[in-house]
């Protein structure tokens, strides 16, 4: 248990460093899509909500099911909406090439 925890802290720390390095390189041009994309990725919390809603619970089954289901709805709407709008925005970014009328 204690070791698991330490491993998790290492994972968090390394991921934070990777995050800083990778995201620092994102051009200010794309900061809005960046925010909508990280928002969609963050909705991976749906994984925890799915397990909460679907697992067998000896007590508190109703609570787990209700809260878990609402949580899945919230996270899924972020996943779907987040990816959709990010892609829509990115499709708009075009380099100046041969000019259309």
């Amino acid at each position: 248990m204690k070791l698991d925890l330490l491993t998790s802290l290492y994972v968090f720390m390394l991921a934070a460093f990777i995050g800083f390095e990778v995201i620092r390189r994102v051009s200010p041009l794309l900061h809005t899509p960046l925010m909508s994309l990280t928002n969609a990725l963050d909705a991976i919390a749906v994984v925890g909500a799915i397990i909460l809603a679907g697992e067998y619970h000896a007590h508190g089954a109703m609570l787990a099911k209700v809260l878990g289901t609402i949580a899945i709805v919230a996270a899924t709407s972020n996943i779907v909406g987040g990816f959709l709008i990010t892609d829509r925005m990115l499709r708009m970014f075009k380099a100046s090439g041969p000019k259309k009328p």
Partner: protein
Amino acid sequence: MTNLPGTEQIIEIAYLFATALFILSLKWLSSPTTARRGVFAGELGMLLAIVGTLLHHGIVEYKWILIALVLGTIIGVPLGEVAMTAVPQRTALSHAFGALCVTLVGTAEFYLRTPDVPRFMMGVLSLEVILGSLTFTGSLMAAGKLQEILPQRPITYKGQNIVNLGLLGVAIAVAGMLVAHPEKTQYFPLIVGIPLLFGVMMIIPIGGADMPTVISLLNSYAGLSAAAMGFVLDSKLLIIAGALDGASGLILSVNMSKAMNRSFSNVLFGAFGQEHTAAAGQQEARPVRSATPEEAAAILAAANKVVIVPGYGMAVAQAQHKVRELYDALTKRGVDVKFGIHPVAGRMPGHMNVLLAEADIPYDKLLDMEEINGDFPQTDVALVIGANDVTNPAARTDTASPIYGMPVLDVDKARTVMVIKRSMAAGFAGIDNPLYYLSRTLMLFGDARSFVGSIVRELGGGHE
């Protein structure tokens, strides 16, 4: 790992791939040429993770999961199709949804695990729930202000900071007590309820111009609460996704604060508008030079190099498509047209770039403040559309100005400055802009959209 049944191993491997895809997704986002591949990588990772989770042997009932996934999709699709001007409030709303998910899962986990919650676990769980709840209501408030359902004006009262900090302090104290005595479940609702209230109180004094910083900060909180949830559920995938989101939000918040020359605490506890409303009133009517669309068109047509500086006012007037026509008309005449974009132009980081990209302006013409500022002395015309404070030269020179020290676009260094503005009323922050009284400045009074439209007609362009 060795004694896991086969399916569980496959799930773990799916999570591993999902993690790698998430990091690649953000890496590819660094440039517009690879960014769409980044979205695809993110989608693939998400699909792998969700399918993997659905295979999890502990799941005994699928009915509600599937209903919820379908319902979430039904809500998500319209949220993915909002207008580009509405993206800031959509983003705030999605922070609220993310935080809601985290808070609900955290709350359920507490009641399922109590009374034997280890100390550290209780600490992380408290962090998850506190950050989640305050982000939930805070983001809803931000979305309400951006959508103009709620008054956009900062609302302040005496002792506001003490009340807010006091609320947060009480929540943290209760959390500390729960870490010491996790069996006292009757106190748990407090670490949900008090932060919910704090989230509302925190956004009440925030005005529209501070939204970019606040949205970024809420983004960071949402990420950190998800990472805390990863600790509680022992999910490395969630810890990593949360850390990436938290880091992203933090970087953006730092960028935004720097661009406004303010600290986080100043944004959260400063309530901008309040300190200097007095300064705006004493301004005498000084003479300005104004020009008609015909005159403006003639000056622009004669220029070699034009820099357009758009602000949120351009988006409010829905002028971006007219601005594109102006860009086309000038480019056709051989004028070099670029756009100078301040980091806090718009209502969220990068908002102005998205609005201009939507209007089909090539992204290589959109330059950020640092890239464009050196160009102004060689610029014939700087055309300011709906921007005010971010062009205020007083920020460089006048130590008494409330925005002194804020990095601004040096439009006053261009040979001619033209400012499209409805009237001489002061900007959002209520600060007078000396730019308007310079001898090289021409004021173009009118609605941004119709004024730009008139210039385009004079230049013989446009499609009407």
